[in-house]
């Protein structure tokens, strides 16, 4: 039998109150996250919030969620406040921003417990505990199955295919200067065609009528043919088809969209203990919890990315409709940080000429 929660709380409080002469740590932590993270006040029953409440019940440490903006804004703020952070733990820095966070010394180094059980494709990115991988996802070209069918066109099977005349004026992408999936897609083309080939590729796409819009919402909801736009090919996520099924207005039995697997670029997101926290021990326990199975199993349905823990059982919609490429395109985080601004400038010169 488990004792009722208030009793645990009291016991923890008593234990910590008697916990010896060391410096007292605050029993409340602030988890800084990007804007799509569940907000406690907006959805207190969200499974992610419930999981964090369980962490509180077990440890006596309460967790407040602080939304810092989109990922770029969040990392810029973190770099600006490095050493005197807004919170104790940060969730959701992706691999394209990881190097910037490491260079700005945003995080304390820490190897979370259980990290050795994670696939090396994630842990290799942070060999010295610079941060802790917590989830991943892919940015891929999606297509509107019905729209391509009615045009009598076969879906493309590679990035190179998109240069063909039958896909002229059918693709919409996001601006890499202003959008995270847009940047991921640019990096996919750099990974595929190399430093001396990607500009030529984009010049062909430009001549083939690619449409560039500012952000994912504009691309997906305004230009993509499925919600009413005119372009049947869009840069979105590998998880978009299952979410089309899950969040359809009426229950669906088949995904209305497909993913072109060879175009997928892998994004990995990290959490970390913010340097300068008042509660380093509590912060480390929270990071441990974020990679534990209890938290990881809530990620896919509520954060729309996939858990790094390979043992987590995913909802059927994901196993049925999501794409998990065996060999996604990738780039080294340090290479990304060193070249991001230059790539974007070069891309802008090619595409807007």
């Amino acid at each position, binding site marked *: 039998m488990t004792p009722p929660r208030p009793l645990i709380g009291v016991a923890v409080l008593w234990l910590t109150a008697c916990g010896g002469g060391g410096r007292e740590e605050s029993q409340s932590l*602030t988890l*800084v996250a990007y*804007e*799509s993270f*569940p*907000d*406690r*006040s*907006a*959805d207190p*029953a*969200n499974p992610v919030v419930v999981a964090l409440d369980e962490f509180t019940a077990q440890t006596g440490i309460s967790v407040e*969620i*602080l*939304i*810092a*903006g*989109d990922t*770029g*804004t969040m990392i*810029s*703020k973190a*770099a*600006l*406040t490095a050493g*005197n952070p*807004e919170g104790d733990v940060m969730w959701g820095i992706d691999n394209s921003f990881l190097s*910037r966070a490491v260079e700005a010394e945003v995080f304390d180094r820490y190897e979370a417990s259980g990290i050795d059980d994670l696939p090396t494709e994630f842990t290799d990115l942070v060999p010295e505990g610079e941060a802790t991988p917590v989830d991943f996802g892919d940015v891929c070209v999606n297509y509107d199955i019905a729209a391509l069918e009615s045009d009598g066109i076969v879906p493309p099977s590679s990035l190179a295919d998109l240069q063909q005349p039958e896909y002229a004026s059918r693709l919409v992408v996001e*601006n890499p*200067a*202003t959008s995270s999936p847009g940047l991921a897609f640019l990096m996919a083309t750099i990974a595929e065609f190399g430093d001396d080939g990607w500009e030529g590729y984009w010049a062909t796409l430009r001549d083939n009528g690619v*449409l*560039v*819009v*500012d952000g994912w*919402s*504009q691309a*997906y*909801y*305004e230009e993509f043919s499925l919600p*009413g736009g*005119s372009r049947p090919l869009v840069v979105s996520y590998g*998880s*978009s088809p299952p*979410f*089309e099924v*899950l*969040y*359809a*207005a*009426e*229950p669906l039995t088949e995904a209305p969209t497909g993913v072109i697997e060879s175009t997928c670029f892998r994004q990995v997101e990290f959490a970390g203990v913010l340097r300068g926290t008042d509660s380093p021990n509590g912060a480390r326990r929270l990071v441990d919890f974020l990679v534990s199975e209890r938290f990881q199993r809530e990620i896919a*349905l*509520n954060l729309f990315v996939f858990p790094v823990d390979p043992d987590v059982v995913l*909802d059927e919609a994901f196993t049925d409709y999501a794409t998990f490429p065996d060999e996604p395109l990738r780039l080294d985080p340090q290479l990304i940080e060193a070249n*991001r*601004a230059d790539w974007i*400038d070069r891309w*802008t010169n090619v595409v*807007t000429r």
Partner: protein
Amino acid sequence: MDERRHPLKPNQLPRWSLIAVTAPPTAFLLVFYVWPFATLIANGFNAGSLSDTFGRSATWRVLWFTVWQAAASTTLTLVIGLAPTWAVSRFSFPGRRALLSMLTAVFVLPTVVVGAAFVALLPGSLDRSIWAILGAHVVFNLAVVVRAVGAVWEKLPADLEHAGATLGASPLQVFLRVTLPLLRPSLAAAASIVFLFTFTSFGVIRVLGTANRATLEVEVWRRATQLGDLGGAAVLTVLQLLVLGVLVAWTSLVQRRTTHVLDMDESSSRQFPKGKERWVVGAAVGVTLMLVTAPLLALVERSLRGDDGYSLVAWQSLDNNEIRPGLRLNVDPLGALTNSVVTALLATILAVVIGGAAVISITTLGRTGRWLDTGLMLPLGTSAVTIGFGMLITFDTPPFDWRASWWLVPVGHGLVAVPFVVRTALGVLRSVDLDLRAAAATLGASPVRAWRATTLPFLLRPLATGAGLAAAISLGEFGATSFLSRSGSETLPIAIERLLGRTGRIFQAQAFALSTILAIATIVIVMLVDVGDSRGE
């Protein structure tokens, strides 16, 4: 009337009361704008970032685009706005007030939302062209022209125009030779406001723009948040303020040069249109009505779109976070509405107190007051991201560690809303007859009592109008809110943006349902204020 013409000031307010009204707005401006902004500039502005920024060809491209699109948008808005301004200031017709309210509501609606509706309305070939941006700017800013120019036009003495007509001038000649010159100062004022808003355009450009169309405001945001180039962001923010400074100087010059002393008709002389006029007025009103209602109707239409045909699912799930077992919306629409209303209430109180004190201070201080007046306008020309980031590195040490304090959001809204309260009230207060106060003083009233009896009554109405505008602006505010870190105080525009960031038909439909609620709330507030206004006429 100009106070300099009164060498004797028997009715001047005592020093203590002057300090009491000057200190709050000055302190507010210094603490929440100047200090954070200066900290950020000091942090990023240096020789390196200057030469980097101006050495980049993109900077000049962005500056050029920002200037010319703002100039083109302003010109178009003025030209297109003249016909409805003429109609609403010269004629009475059913629905006149409703039209004015709708125009104002569109002006304060979140750009992200109306922009999306705009894309839905335009034919595919146009929706990414420069015309989409210019068109959205015109629709957004029509209210500025109609309100600012209309306020003067409806009070122009009609006998001047009649005299012209009697002397044989055609209606066009009368308009060009008589009416237009008299309207010029108000046209210049409207033009400078529209230019300010389109020059600093952010939401419209982000929703409707393409890769090569960025304004300085968008570039500041991109440098600061996406590239982490704070130096570049700081330099561009200063550049933006410099350009706007030149603009303000130029407008006040034009206004001073072209201001005519006129006996304004105090009572408006609006009439029902007769004969042929009816067709012209009808056409002007009809086209305007179409321009402003089409995006609003598009919001409603899109909130009803289901997988096939129409569905009420978005509206039905408004109070239900779990739409199917295990599937959550992760957004609390009604909670966000409550947050928005509470925030708007606080921001409005703040804006009215600070703005009201500022107006009294500015009018009493004369020339010195211009500094406060200009200072309070500055936040409108400053990128929200630089203020947000400035606050982050300024208020970071106890006891001033205010980062992520819930009240920073209403304070941020207050910064944006105060100029509207000041603009609304200043014109009215300046026109209060000083002779009235002198008379009261002669009759033995103390300066404070004379002020209370003669000036205060004139201040209440514009303050109420300003309060309505402030509330509407706070309801729709997106930029400043999105750059402040927050926990548990999501406002409606933020919730809408969040819904639009996810895959699935339900999210999209519900985002538009929330937008519809936001639009209705805004229209209701503006109409209430207008009804209050008309009762007083």
